[in-house]
């Protein structure tokens, strides 16, 4: 009896507490459009096959669902943490070459485009891996041999080679992997990129070129309607305008500036602002053209590595700067962490050694090289920091400025002997290693080549054989170890110098409540449970 009373009391108390908490939460939450200002000047594309910027991904993350996801707010590719999204469960063959996914039943596309089926999934990935669909990501999906829709809710991927983390490299919620409605794509054609149809928590409602994208809550979302009825993504490329509007309270969330001093300044004038730095953000490398003098001499490349005190990046960027041990960001599958990097491959700052190597290479008086660099803040800052450092060891870098579009366009035509490149993090080290350092990706003067700016593996032996072997390995642990060996090989040959990881910066108002921590990547921020308290 006593136990029963206690239980009832406990229940009543708990109900009271829970009820009051819910009531408090209900009264605290405010319903109005959530305003997120991007630093971009416009939407690139909201069609997953030709997403052109990270912020396009942020929008697509709300509109579309992927099959699986890392834990929200992270890019964690640990298999044990992989979450189901459209796929209820999945399995892989022992050699990791055949992956089967079982979809949830009854999930609907927006605007009456019907249920999400295995055929839509097959269509999505066939489209992204096609060279004729307009896909910008076909190369990344080139190892899919075929896709089968076994029944209405079962889809099977056959890979040409083993991939122990296929779910992460190909299916995580980012460009290409968002599941589209076949019917909508076929009906709309090119217009789909401005009027996409997905099955996510928000429906694409309106696009005003150069100004705004508006999303409305999907009333039929399978996890229940999103807490905010409307999301507005505003395009505000001017940092000062974005910052002032944020400080005034006109914006709830903004892209910060990835520039030295910006975050501390904001923190000083607005202590309540919550500055979120997402790592690894961008992986920033300095590619050296190994086919031309003076960088065809390993000793010169080593001299540059020893002459560069990489702590200057931390000093300049502060909390936005993170370490980069190899060519891929720490935490990426197959990338080097501090413990994996031998002391001699860390190239600890040693100006005397740098000068000695230069003299040994036939440049006792130092050397001079002409380069051009983008005016974009982080590119220019990086180059100026490097220029300042290397001048002290006798390497003079004469820098001219070009706009960002010209920079990338001319780099593709092999015009620059030193290229600072900033790229998003990927799920596996194999992807960037293949993109930047495989002989098959060699950059050519006609602009038809790839992004191997250093011509590594073309004039001198490279990592192609090792990378190829690693990609065939079916055991995940062994494969990751082999990829780390590739990274160490790259550090020995130095076709590029690792500079830093530069975090993405977001700033949120204190009254924006997000039910998970934003830690890594910038793409995995589903906003269905975001609330505003003001």
């Amino acid at each position, binding site marked *: 009896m006593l136990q029963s009373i206690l239980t009832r009391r406990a229940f009543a108390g708990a109900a009271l507490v829970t009820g009051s908490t819910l009531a408090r939460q209900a009264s605290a939450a405010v319903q109005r459009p959530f305003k997120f200002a991007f630093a971009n000047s416009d939407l690139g594309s909201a069609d997953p096959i030709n997403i052109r910027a990270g912020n396009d991904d942020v929008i697509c993350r709300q509109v579309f669902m992927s099959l699986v996801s890392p834990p929200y707010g992270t890019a964690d590719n640990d298999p044990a943490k992989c979450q189901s999204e459209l796929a209820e469960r999945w399995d892989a063959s022992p050699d990791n070459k055949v992956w089967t996914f079982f979809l949830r039943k009854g999930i609907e596309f927006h605007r009456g485009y019907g249920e999400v089926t295995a055929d839509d999934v097959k269509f999505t990935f066939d489209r992204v891996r096609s060279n004729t669909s307009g896909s*910008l990501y076909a190369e990344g999906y080139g190892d899919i041999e075929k896709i089968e829709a076994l029944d209405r809710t079962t889809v099977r991927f056959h890979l040409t080679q083993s991939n122990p983390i296929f779910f992460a490299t190909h299916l995580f919620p980012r460009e290409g992997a968002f599941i589209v409605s076949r019917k909508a794509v076929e009906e709309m054609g090119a217009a789909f990129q401005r009027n996409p149809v997905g099955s996510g928590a928000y429906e694409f409602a309106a696009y005003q070129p150069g100004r705004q994208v508006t999303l409305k809550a999907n009333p039929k979302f399978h996890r229940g309607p999103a807490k905010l009825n409307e999301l507005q993504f505003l395009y505000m490329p*001017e940092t000062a*305008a974005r910052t*002032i*509007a944020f400080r*005034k309270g006109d*914006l709830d969330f903004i892209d910060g500036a990835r520039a030295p001093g910006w975050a501390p300044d904001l923190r000083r004038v607005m202590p309540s602002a919550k500055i979120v730095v997402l790592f690894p953000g961008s992986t920033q490398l300095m590619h050296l053209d190994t086919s031309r003098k003076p960088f065809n001499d390993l000793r010169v490349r080593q001299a540059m590595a020893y002459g560069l005190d990489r702590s200057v990046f931390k000093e300049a960027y502060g909390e936005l700067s993170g370490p980069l041990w190899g060519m891929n960001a720490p935490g990426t599958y197959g990338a080097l962490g501090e413990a994996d990097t031998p002391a001699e491959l860390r190239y600890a700052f040693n100006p005397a050694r740098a000068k000695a190597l230069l003299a040994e290479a036939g440049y006792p008086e130092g050397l001079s090289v002409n380069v051009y660099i983008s005016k974009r803040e982080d590119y220019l800052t990086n180059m100026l920091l490097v220029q300042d450092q290397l001048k002290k060891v006798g390497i003079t870098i004469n820098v001219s400025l070009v706009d960002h*579009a010209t920079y990338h*366009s001319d780099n593709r035509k092999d015009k620059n002997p030193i290229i600072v490149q900033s790229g998003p993090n990927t799920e596996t080290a194999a992807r960037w290693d293949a993109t930047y350092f495989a002989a098959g990706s060699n950059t050519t003067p006609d602009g038809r080549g790839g992004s191997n700016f250093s011509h590594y593996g073309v004039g001198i032996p490279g990592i192609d054989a090792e990378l190829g072997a690693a990609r065939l390995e079916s055991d995940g642990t062994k494969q990751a170890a082999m990829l780390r060996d590739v990274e160490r090989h790259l550090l020995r040959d130095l076709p590029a110098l690792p500079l830093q990881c530069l975090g993405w910066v977001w700033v949120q108002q204190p009254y924006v409540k997000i039910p998970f921590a934003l830690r890594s990547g910038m793409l995995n921020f589903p906003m269905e449970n975001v609330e505003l308290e003001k």
Partner: protein
Amino acid sequence: MGRYILQRLIDAVPTVLLSLTLVFAALRILPGDPAVAMLGDRAPIEQIEAFRHKVGLDQSLPMQYVNFLAEVATGNFGRSLANDTPITQLLADNLPYTLELTGFATLISLLIGIPIGIISAVAHGRLPDHVARLFGLAGYCIPDFFLGALFMLYFGLHLDLLPVMGGGTGFPDRMLHLVMPAATIGLVMAAFLSRLTRSAMLEVLRFDYIRTARAKGLSTWLVITKHALRNAMIPIVTGIGIYILSALSGSIAIELVFSRPGLGQLMIGAVEARDFPIVQATITMFALFVVVVNLMVDVAYAVINPRVRTGEA
């Protein structure tokens, strides 16, 4: 008067044609591939080539030029390379914001600049003149984008009186959003205009007919407005024409500072993205503005001084 206007319009045709040709050539000379700018630096070459073909960038330059002129002649500027939106729609969406900004900025400059210039001239060498000259000097020294940022910080952020971003929706809201950007450009223009008015008035006030008018016992007000100002108006009107165009170019920076829609914002985004059709269309619009404003100035000359339209001047 109709014939005079027609003649001026015919005279403007080569100017517009030359502007269009320069814009077309400049964009093609400018380094940077639109396809790479649109699709990203890691886009496969097949997609880049397909994009070039789709938007006609693989055609010969003469063919692109002919197509461009044909599009302009028909008032159809094509579609944005970036978002495939018809450019006429983009212009229709953005042009009103730029026109209202330039219009209000000009109005502010006229209402402030001309009276200050007149007072300064009439009170030559005295305190009001010194204050007015200081105002003019400040206008020369302070860039409009900097003044805009100061306004945003003080009136927008500190006092929380005015909106700091966007163009507003609905008439009252749009007017509210117009205050700071228009005041920013208008005050800088007013400073220039006050100096111009002052010097033009000082020139005229020395003439004998002003002395005669005063000797006749006319009120100072009548002497200033009827005799002096009207004769000083020719250089002032020329200045106003130039300042309207200056306001128009100033609107580019101000639209960016205030994240305000408009042709300037549209053009800057398009230059960054190498969206040729938009850049061509916006610069064509600016060129047409120049023609229209010059025409207005010419007509104003003719109204102020009838000898201009009869060819006696």
